[in-house]
């Protein structure tokens, strides 16, 4: 079934480095389009800095709004990189090769974008920078480690540092490759980044071990990041937030949306850079099967959350549940989450025919992320709007144009950074592709030739 086309070394190098040297018209469209949205984003953030948070739709009791929802969403997307590259590396899944690089890069950019949100959303962002670094040295007053908002940066910075180092380590051999076949500023850049890589046996051995070791180390960090983000909500006493299940629930939701985002990215790369020989249908097939399991796990936690929120049968929880399940517009939102997040994509993925169809995979993965964005909104907002018995203070939340621009702009930001990255660095790991070719074998079983792969252990 594998339509595997044996590629030459030179062919691999040339095709995978193509986005670095040629800019297709579609890439120009991408740069200009995303750049324009990005300009709006920058304008909106500056506007908000200048006038203050009054220009948002936030008020009492809706102190957190679109920006926090979007923060959680992007943190979720950032979980794709590790999920794909670490778990697949550890299990030595062959289909990881074309997707690890892109997934890791997406992790880093979406994490950076996510981190932007809590900073710009504070009342005094200029003071917030103190808070990321130890605060007020001269008064000996450091951040209160009892607060989840301090756990947050500690986890996110660990994850960002770890995944950046991870990405860089696996990129060194490709930097050497680029060094050997470029001139000018690129040559200088790649020479510096390649650190004098020569590709001897010891270096390759270290590279392979590093892949496993860093994967093993970053997995527990990955789980902790979204857990801690979930505790931002769960440790408070807001009804429907104060749920013990939030940590694993957020993590599995993050994997669901993150892996779907990787599918989106794979389809886009295939289309934009014409990587058909590398990102093959069998990869969509494999990732689709993974998504069925992840999606079903997500559904289980989703239902656990709902069931055990109703379980105490307390008026305050039921009030919010009734509100978010049955009242306009949340009833539509609920349906959207269920249908987009599970009931359309997963039954489709069950059929191999559809898993091997790039268009279908692309659109279902988009659907999942629409559903998952809605899910974050659904999780975070109703609890604030109907907090406890204070009907006097219940209120709707309407995002302002500034917040909407920031949310849309964040997508442009990640897209733009990804495009810039793929202009400078190969978006598919070249050496891992070649390794795959080196390790490929065939087994003869009777009359059938089975594709096989060398395992080192």
């Amino acid at each position, binding site marked *: *079934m*594998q339509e595997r086309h044996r590629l030459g070394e030179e062919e691999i190098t040339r095709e995978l480095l193509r986005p670095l040297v040629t800019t297709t018209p579609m890439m120009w469209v991408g740069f200009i389009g995303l750049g324009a949205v990005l300009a709006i984003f920058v304008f909106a953030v500056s506007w908000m800095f200048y006038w203050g948070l009054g220009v948002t739709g936030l008020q009492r009791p809706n102190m957190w709004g679109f920006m926090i929802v979007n923060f959680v969403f992007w943190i979720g997307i950032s979980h794709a990189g590790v999920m794909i590259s670490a778990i697949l590396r*550890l*299990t030595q899944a*062959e289909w990881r090769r074309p997707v690890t690089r892109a997934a890791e890069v997406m992790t880093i950019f979406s994490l950076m974008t996510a981190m932007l949100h809590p900073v710009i959303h504070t009342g005094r962002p200029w003071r917030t920078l103190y808070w990321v670094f130890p605060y007020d040295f001269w008064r000996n007053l450091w951040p209160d480690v009892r607060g989840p908002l301090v756990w947050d940066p500690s986890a996110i910075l660990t994850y960002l540092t770890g995944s950046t180092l991870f990405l860089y380590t696996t990129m060194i051999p490709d930097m050497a490759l680029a060094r050997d076949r470029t001139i000018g500023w690129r040559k200088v850049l790649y020479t510096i980044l390649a650190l004098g890589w020569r590709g001897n046996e010891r270096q390759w051995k270290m590279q392979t*071990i590093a892949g*496993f*070791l860093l*994967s*093993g*180390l970053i997995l*527990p960090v990955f*789980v902790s990041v979204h*857990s801690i983000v979930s*505790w931002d909500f*769960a*440790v408070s*006493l807001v009804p429907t937030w*104060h*749920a*013990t*299940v*939030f*940590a*694993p629930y957020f993590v599995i939701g993050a994997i669901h949306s993150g892996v779907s985002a990787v599918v989106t990215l794979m389809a886009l790369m295939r289309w934009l850079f014409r990587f058909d020989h590398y990102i093959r249908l069998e990869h969509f097939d494999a990732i689709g099967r993974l998504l069925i*399991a992840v999606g*079903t796990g997500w559904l*289980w*936690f989703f239902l*656990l*959350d709902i*069931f*055990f*929120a*109703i*379980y*105490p*049968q*307390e008026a305050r929880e039921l009030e919010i549940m009734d509100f978010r399940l049955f009242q306009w517009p949340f009833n539509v939102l609920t349906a959207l989450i269920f249908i987009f997040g599970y009931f359309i994509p997963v039954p489709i993925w069950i059929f191999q025919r559809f898993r091997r169809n790039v268009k279908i995979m692309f659109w279902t993965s988009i659907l999942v992320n629409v559903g998952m964005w809605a899910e974050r909104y659904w999780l975070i907002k109703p609890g604030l709007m109907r907090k406890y018995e204070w009907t006097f203070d219940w209120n709707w939340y309407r995002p302002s144009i500034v917040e909407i621009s920031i949310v849309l702009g964040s997508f442009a930001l990640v897209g733009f950074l990804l495009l810039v990255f793929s202009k400078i660095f190969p978006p598919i790991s070249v050496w891992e592709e070649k390794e795959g070719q080196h390790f490929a*074998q065939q*087994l003869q*079983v009777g009359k059938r030739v*089975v*594709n*096989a*792969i*060398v*395992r*080192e*252990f």
Partner: protein
Amino acid sequence: MATHSHAHGHELQRTWELAPSDVLANGLGWLREVGRRLRTPLLICFVLFVIGILAIVATPLRQGFANRQAWTYVAAAFLYLMSTAAAAPALSTALRVARSHWRRPVNRASEIWGVTLILPFLLYLLLLPTFPGTEDRLSIWFGWPLSPWLWGAILMLALTGAGYLFVWFSSVPDLAIVRDHGTPAQRGLAAWLSRGWVGSHRQWRIYEKVVNNIGVLYVLIYVPVMTVLSSDFIIALIPGYFTAVFPAYFTISSFQAGIALTIVTMAVLRRWGGQADYLGREQFWALGKLLLAFSLLWFYFWWSEFIIFWYGRMPREISVLKLLMAETYRWPFVLSFAMNFALPLLILMWNPIRRSIAGPTVVATIVLLGNLIDRIRLTSAAFSQPDSALLGHAHELHEIPAAYVPGISDLLILVGMLAGALMLVLWTARYLPFPSVAEVVGGLWLRAHKPFKHARVIVVGKPE
């Protein structure tokens, strides 16, 4: 935490250099010889089982269903069997779905525990009358008529059925071997069970699909069953225990125990069952990694609950913490924390230990004990609550009952029920060959040890 420092790469396991006829010979050898050796342990288990049944009749049954506390250890035995024996077949499905070839000799060791499912099912039926109805108390059934009795029983029945189907279907090709080559005593049942299996191309194709799908079905039933059980047996019986992560904790720690049970079974098979060729370091290493991962998950799911309660510090949360972890059941908690998380982590984080036979086996034994203590802790806390504390939608634990200390009959019940499960497995092992001939032979084609220039490498086939 992954892998490093294996002097020269690959340990080349003998399994993959055997010919199909060797595997068949081993399987038939098991059928001829081991059956006789199993007679004594089988008898011991039977005696213990009978004593356990007598203990159930003597104490809980005599005290009646209204006294829930008397049933604590019956419930503990039930939950423990559900967490270990019933979880083991799920592992085999997971490995099948992941399409790893090393698992082929492991599958039978985990699937065979599916035959014990009848025992927890019967215990469950016995325990059902001890529950008050759900109309006037908090439960996941929300006062649905005939809950929790009827609906829980239906779920358990579905699980038991799926489990037996799974064990049966996955061993049909091997049963055909027994039918054709077993001793006359073994043949009758095997012939009936193996039906018209001749091993045609069509049959094999159907077999692979069906076994996979029933395995997945089993997991898909197992998870909701554990969710319902954890809710019915523990959450709903402790007033104010409002936690959504507990069913997940319960399920995940059950998978952990299921893996541990498989490892222990493998070690026993290797030591006394002549399976050294099939269950080598590769299998123990792989499952050791899995066990380590689930030990970390044990902590994660426990912590997810703890940090919320500790931070929220609502009175009802504090009293639940006091009951389950800090005061009443402090030592069982500390023990289970150490045995399910701390010790496995500290031991298994070293790759040389993971890559041995003894390392994962010792840790698996520790985990199995830790899980038992954990289940006893939770059941004791839950079954000590009188009905008066539950009825009328209790939202808080007002009075923390004293810790339940087991009597001699409680221990007899526990040991007896576990021996009963073991008895079923031993009995089945007389009719089923080890290793699973069909599984292992099917993998021989897809895995080879080949020279690669100066290296010898493992080549893994990836059909489809």
